[in-house]
């Protein structure tokens, strides 16, 4: 069993590069995924992820182990950084030029095309949500965090998170309803 996050952070502050990289490898996927879904851009997600871990090096005293785990703290930092990108994206609505970089998982070109199209529809539907609604939906549905942890990440009360999550789901369902009726987003 590896060292705890607290021990790794202490070693990092003492100049242990391997400890810092271990922290990064533990938390990079969640941070990057969250930032990617918040900003809708792989470049912005990479920027957010990088800034998030550099911030841990710059001001390590901001992290309080008594309040939350290191993963939650990093997620909160990624949330704050993502909101800067997302707020600009929310105003400008650049959803049309978002490009999906991942290879399609489908075996055939037609299936790949359909999967890409479904992903695009979901991504655009998420982009229509307000950032405060989008973040709680991403944390709850994609990262499977419970309400208490989401409240810590977004800096709100659990009740407020619950309300935001409910409104986000309702809005998203209304947005996707047209595609669901057309049969494009049929759930297997």
């Amino acid at each position: 069993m590896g060292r705890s996050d607290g021990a790794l952070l202490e070693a990092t502050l003492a100049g242990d590069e391997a400890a810092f990289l271990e922290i990064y490898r533990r938390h990079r996927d969640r941070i990057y995924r969250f930032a990617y879904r918040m900003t809708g851009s792989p470049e912005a997600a990479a920027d957010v992820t990088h800034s998030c871990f550099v911030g841990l090096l710059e001001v390590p005293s901001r992290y309080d182990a008594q309040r939350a785990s290191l993963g939650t703290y990093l997620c909160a930092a990624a949330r704050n950084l993502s909101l800067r990108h997302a707020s600009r994206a929310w105003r400008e609505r650049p959803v049309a030029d978002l490009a999906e970089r991942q290879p399609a998982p489908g075996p055939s070109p037609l299936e790949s095309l359909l999967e890409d199209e479904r992903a695009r529809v979901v991504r655009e539907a998420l982009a229509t949500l307000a950032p405060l609604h989008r973040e709680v939906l991403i944390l709850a549905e994609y990262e499977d965090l419970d309400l208490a942890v989401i409240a810590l990440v977004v800096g709100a009360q659990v009740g407020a998170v619950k309300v935001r999550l409910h409104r986000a789901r309702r809005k998203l369902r209304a947005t996707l309803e047209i595609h669901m009726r057309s049969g494009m987003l049929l759930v297997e």
Partner: protein
Amino acid sequence: MKQDLKPIEEDGPERDELRALLRRWRAPQAPPEIEDALQREFRRRRARRRPVLWVPLAAAAALIVAWLVRPANLPFSTTSPKAPVVPVSSPAPPLRTAEPDRSSGATPAVAEPGRARRRSTPWPKQPQVVVEPDQAALLAELGRTLSRTRQAIPGTAIPQMPEVEVPRYLEEWQTVTGEWPLVQQSDAMGGR
């Protein structure tokens, strides 16, 4: 379970359906360039931080070395007793910088201004008597006169007062009644 953590009932089956739809949007893996950039950033910060750590250590080591190799007969040596603090209001003792004591080799040839008040010999433990310059001369003259007198008449001592019996009327007093302020008189006088 806390009230706030209870799932929303209306999100039951619809939530599962929505979640299945959301899962169609997959996020890519974090690119390896981030790790490389963070590694470079970490090394850059560590290299920049190293001199900051070594500067106070080097300064402390230099101070220790300077303290260890100092001349043993310096007036601020730790073996010499600590000079007492002279109050600012009292006149400072005369400094002997103009005429250094040649008999003791510990005194430097040229007294430095900052070290002039430090002495290698302990201060006298008697209380310091502050007098005017004329008074000091008078006291010195008085001392010399007394010394000469004692040398001229050996065995001179302060004459003792003869013991005298106290009269009885001084021991027995009583208050005179009817007088204000209170008046006391001796029994011998009252009995007259």
